């Protein structure tokens, strides 16, 4: 489903961000992407949602090749995945209901279908009663739930989460992680970048570790049943 083959990414100013990274992520997998800040986690995620193109090597996501995809097709491709960030990226001047609806509106969803879908998603993330609040009236954990609801509007095949709990306390972190697991068990693959090692250790899921742009550890593809290997080199 997602294949990185010998991917190298260089930026003109900052130099090499990734060097010869290869991995494969299956349909419906839950993968942690770990490593210190600046190791290249975000670069990998940007390559997955095709905000960046590899300098060399090939990235293939679903049926799209990063080196071949056209600008217009990137927009269509993005509608098949969901992305959430550490800083939530909500629009402060709209209610959370409008924030979620916005993602459907900009993709030209039929008007009548938007409202029911938005309230279903807000209920799913546990915010059904706060649909008319503005983002600043919500806690960090709740704001991240809004962002997740927004990422789910197009029924993505993969949810990409870049440090989703980076700004949250332990309790909220656990809540968000549980929500992501629920989403995953409904069939959506999840790639979660984090440097919260406690979370990673406890979870017993696939781990890909990046350091200085190199893949230093991969606990292996999970196919039908998760093999349940804990990361060894992560201490």
């Amino acid at each position, binding site marked *: 489903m997602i294949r990185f083959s010998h991917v190298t990414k260089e930026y003109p100013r900052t130099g090499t961000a990734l060097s010869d990274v290869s991995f494969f992520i299956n349909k419906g997998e839950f993968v942690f992407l770990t490593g210190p800040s600046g190791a290249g986690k975000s670069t990998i995620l940007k390559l997955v949602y095709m905000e960046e193109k590899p300098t060399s090597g090939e990235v293939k996501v679903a049926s799209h090749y990063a080196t071949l995809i056209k600008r217009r097709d990137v927009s269509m491709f*993005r*509608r098949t995945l969901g*992305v959430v960030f550490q800083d939530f990226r909500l*629009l402060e001047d709209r209610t959370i209901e409008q924030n979620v609806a916005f993602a459907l509106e*900009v993709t030209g969803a039929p008007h009548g279908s938007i409202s029911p879908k938005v309230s279903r998603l807000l209920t799913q993330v546990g915010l059904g009663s706060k649909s008319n609040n503005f983002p600043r009236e919500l806690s960090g954990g709740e704001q991240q739930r809004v962002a997740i609801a927004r990422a789910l*509007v*197009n029924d993505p095949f993969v949810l990409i989460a870049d440090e989703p709990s980076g700004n949250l306390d332990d309790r909220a972190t656990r809540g968000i992680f549980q929500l992501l697991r629920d989403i995953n068990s409904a069939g959506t693959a999840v790639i979660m970048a984090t440097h919260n090692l406690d979370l990673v250790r406890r979870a017993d899921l696939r781990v890909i570790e990046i350091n200085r742009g190199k893949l230093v550890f991969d606990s292996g593809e999970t196919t039908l049943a998760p093999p349940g290997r804990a990361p060894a080199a992560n201490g």
Partner: protein
Amino acid sequence: MRLTIRESLLAFKRAPLLSALSILTIAFSLFAFGLFALVALNVSTALREVEERVEIRAFVTDGTTRETIETASGDIAAFPEVQNSATVTPEEALAKARKELGEFQDVFDAAVLPASIDIHLKPGFRDPATVKAVAARIQSYPFVEEVRYGEEWVAKLNTIRNIATAAGIALGIAFAAVAVIIIGATIRMAVLARAREISIMKMVGATDGFIRRPFLVEGLAKGLIGGALALLLTYFASSLISTYMMRTTFFTWQLALLGALCGGLIGLFGSALSVGRHLRKI
């Protein structure tokens, strides 16, 4: 479409000061353009009035019969360049001279003045070369003694008109460019103010065209409002000048409408430039 209009209106509501400022800047740059266009219009109207006075006068040898002169005048009137041609008898010439020139007050003998044929050319044929060619053709009649057509005056008028046209085009382009740059800059501010929103839109899969549309509508609306405002200002300026200084002609309503539409087009163009630049970068 409904979403596009909603988003464009929201842009005005969110940043009323910035919107008002950009409309005013557009209005003033188009006002400067409008004032210049008004000057150009009045200069060209004045020139046309002067041009209409350009005439060729063919003096006829004494003793030519009236019939011959009338026939020749009819022939000349049929030239493709000629608007009208009229014969002037010595008596008519004298009457005119007595009316216009003081020193003819005491002259009563019409025989001192020759008969003539006065020819007006059609608009578009009043340039020096054509005037000269027509004059030469009239000169070829055996009974025509002399042809006068104010050669120098025709050439001078032509030069003035050419300079006015060239200056008009150059300044028009300059003012239009200034307006495009200003609109581009104000839309750029609006784009940057909404950079976060644009990045979110890109993230959830909005196409470039979709993101661009509200900004284009915004630019078009600002341009149109600015254009209408500029038109109003120009109209006030024109009536002030008419009242206190000199009679001026204002644009016809078609031309005025065209001016306001140009404002809209400039707005559209300016915003297309700056949104396009932003979208290429992200």
